[in-house]
């Protein structure tokens, strides 16, 4: 008996120690911020879209004469959720449009990752306020979005990647590196500006873990609850979803015919239930995780296409990003292993060019750009076709395949390789824009200052140690 008790005690003690250690490892190990940054971007854009669409019915949804009479909403909340709150209750009708516009601006900043710690809290407050002010227009999408926004707000770490905040931090670092340029013939050590891989943090891990756990619950609960319904056992439930008259986007009534009824409808029903019940387990098993995420993607794609619940599906997919690997996500744009795919030849004697390289280094997703100061480099070693005169006239980019792009086209080449510049790349590639862009670029390049005629603070900190007349004093 004594042995039994002592063994039981040892087992219990070990269990507690292991649980504490596992808990700490699960919640307090630093994690890569890229997935959380992407979740913030997705949640921000969805919230922006939702608010924008609300703006089409602003008075009907949030005004005092709207569907949800504020007096009734207050009564409703006082009975069912007395601690619930909404900022919209304090906004008079006359201020609805300015308040809505301010909310759009805040959510836009949140999506961009600007002032993330503050804008994340404000974006969550806006999301919750809107659902509480108009509880009759709320559906699953709003709850999921507000939940992800809550985790982004309380952990305060969503701006550590894929954000303007990080871009500013990296730009400052790159600019500081540029300022340390070791003389006119020295090379700037751009590597010292760090890589594109953001630093791991515990705050990020907390955000990801909470979203992961909550996501599992969001799948598990409907899965368990569906087990009560015979339609989920007899294989007919999927019909009830695709044939629901108010949700259908396409005519799928042919699914009532054989063999689709037996094989497609039943299979879809069983697969949906199996997915919801297995996801909360499979997604934690590393070899099965890609399968679980693929199944989630397929499920939400199907929901979005057949029911038109596109926003809900996107919100759920945003949550699934919490299980994605940061290095893998970055490798989608930076390659694996990350390797320079573009050598950027710039005029090291031009302060504006050095500042531009600081921007290029700051937006570099993961060392895919290699700035090369053409004034201290043997150009033929980089590409035999490079001409120093031409390179001094405008920026050249040489990609991994040896293709050379020049001037505005070089800027576009860089923009397409840096996700943060994709909006610029898209806008700058619209037919007609490149013609204008090349003219503007050439004008700026021709009039660019060089170190003797310094005009900005970047070069002002390190005046040239010797005349650079031979390198081309005047802009060409």
């Amino acid at each position, binding site marked *: 008996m004594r042995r039994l008790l002592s063994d039981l005690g040892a087992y219990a*003690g070990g269990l507690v*120690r292991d649980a504490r*250690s596992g808990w*700490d490892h699960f*919640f*307090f190990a630093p994690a890569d911020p890229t997935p959380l940054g992407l979740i913030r971007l997705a949640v921000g854009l969805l919230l922006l879209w939702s608010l924008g*669409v*609300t703006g089409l*019915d602003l008075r009907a949804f949030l005004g005092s*004469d709207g*569907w949800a*009479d504020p007096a*009734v909403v207050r*009564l409703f909340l006082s009975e069912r*959720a*007395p*601690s*619930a*709150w909404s900022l919209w209750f304090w906004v008079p009708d006359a201020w609805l449009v300015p308040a809505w516009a301010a909310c759009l601006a805040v959510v836009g900043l949140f999506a961009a990752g600007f002032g993330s710690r503050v804008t994340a809290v404000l974006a969550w407050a806006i*999301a919750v306020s809107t*659902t*509480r002010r108009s509880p*009759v*227009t*709320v*559906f*699953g*999408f709003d709850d999921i979005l507000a*939940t992800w926004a*809550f985790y982004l707000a309380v952990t305060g770490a969503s701006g550590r990647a894929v954000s303007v905040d990080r871009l500013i931090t990296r730009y400052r670092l790159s600019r500081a590196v540029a300022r340390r340029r070791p003389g006119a013939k020295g090379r700037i050590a751009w590597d010292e500006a760090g890589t594109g891989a953001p630093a791991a943090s*515990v705050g990020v*891990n*907390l955000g990801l873990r*909470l979203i992961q756990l*909550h996501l599992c*619950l969001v799948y598990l*609960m*409907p899965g368990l*609850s*569906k087990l*009560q*319904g*015979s*339609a*989920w056992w007899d294989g007919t439930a999927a*019909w*009830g*979803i695709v*044939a*629901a*008259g*108010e*949700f259908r986007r396409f*005519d799928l*009534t*042919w699914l*009532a*015919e054989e063999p689709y009824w037996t094989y497609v409808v039943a299979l879809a029903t069983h697969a949906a239930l199996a997915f919801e019940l297995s996801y909360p387990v499979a997604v934690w098993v590393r070899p099965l995780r890609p399968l679980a995420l693929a199944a989630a993607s397929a499920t939400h794609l199907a929901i979005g296409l057949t029911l*038109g619940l*596109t926003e809900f599906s996107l919100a759920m997919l945003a949550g699934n990003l919490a299980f994605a690997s940061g290095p893998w996500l970055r490798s989608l744009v930076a390659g694996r292993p990350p390797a320079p795919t573009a050598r950027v030849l710039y005029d090291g004697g031009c302060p504006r060019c050095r500042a531009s390289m600081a921007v290029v280094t700051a937006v570099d997703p993961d060392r895919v750009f290699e700035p090369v100061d053409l004034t201290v480099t043997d150009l033929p070693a980089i590409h035999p076709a490079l001409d120093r005169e031409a390179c001094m006239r405008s920026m050249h980019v040489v990609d991994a395949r040896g293709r050379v792009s020049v001037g505005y086209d070089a800027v576009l080449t860089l923009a397409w390789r840096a996700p943060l510049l994709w909006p610029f790349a898209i806008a700058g590639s619209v037919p007609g824009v490149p013609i204008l862009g090349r003219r503007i670029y050439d004008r700026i390049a021709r009039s660019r200052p060089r170190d003797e005629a310094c005009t900005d603070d970047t070069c002002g900190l390190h005046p040239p140690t010797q005349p650079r007349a031979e390198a081309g004093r005047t802009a060409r």
Partner: protein
Amino acid sequence: MRRDPADQVGVSGVDDRRGGWPVMGRRIVSAVLLFHIAAVLAGALAASPASELERKVVGPFGVYHEATNLGQSYRYYSPAPPPTPVVTATVAFDDGRPEATVRLPDRGLSPRLRYQRHLALAHHLFVDFDEARRFAGDGGRSRWARAYARHLGKTFPGARSVALTVRFHLIPDPARVRELRAEAGSRGVNLDAEEFYTVPERIGVFPCDAS
């Protein structure tokens, strides 16, 4: 009480921080995490059908749920995909104008998210109407119904009254769909045909000046 060796800084020489967080910080955050996880679980489990225990456990988390907008039950499409409530509002005027009819959801709305919001309007009205009918014995006492009528009265100046009805857009019986497909051939099946709706139920007629 035995301490985690990692906590014994200065004794074992093992670093007492994980991820740069001090022990006290981890303990405080762990307590908050435990509370939060318990709150979310309790909220998910308390929706019907739930045991008496599950309903009692959720009580202490009520304020937290309300303040954070958490505590949802996430029981989508269960126990089976439901039919969809569709609300019709008929607005009558004093000045002889013909009656105006508003359908919730309005099929003409775009983008799709606006339509989804109108589906939610109809759903929430039906839930409130059903509760009023069951607990107060009169569906016309639905507060949302009065609020909707008030809104429609303001939307249509000069409105005398708003009559609200609700019916269900049913999930079609697959056997009937097969019959119709056989009859219709390539024209397809009209899922908006009257046979796929229930008979409208009257929620109430609400005078606009008193709504």
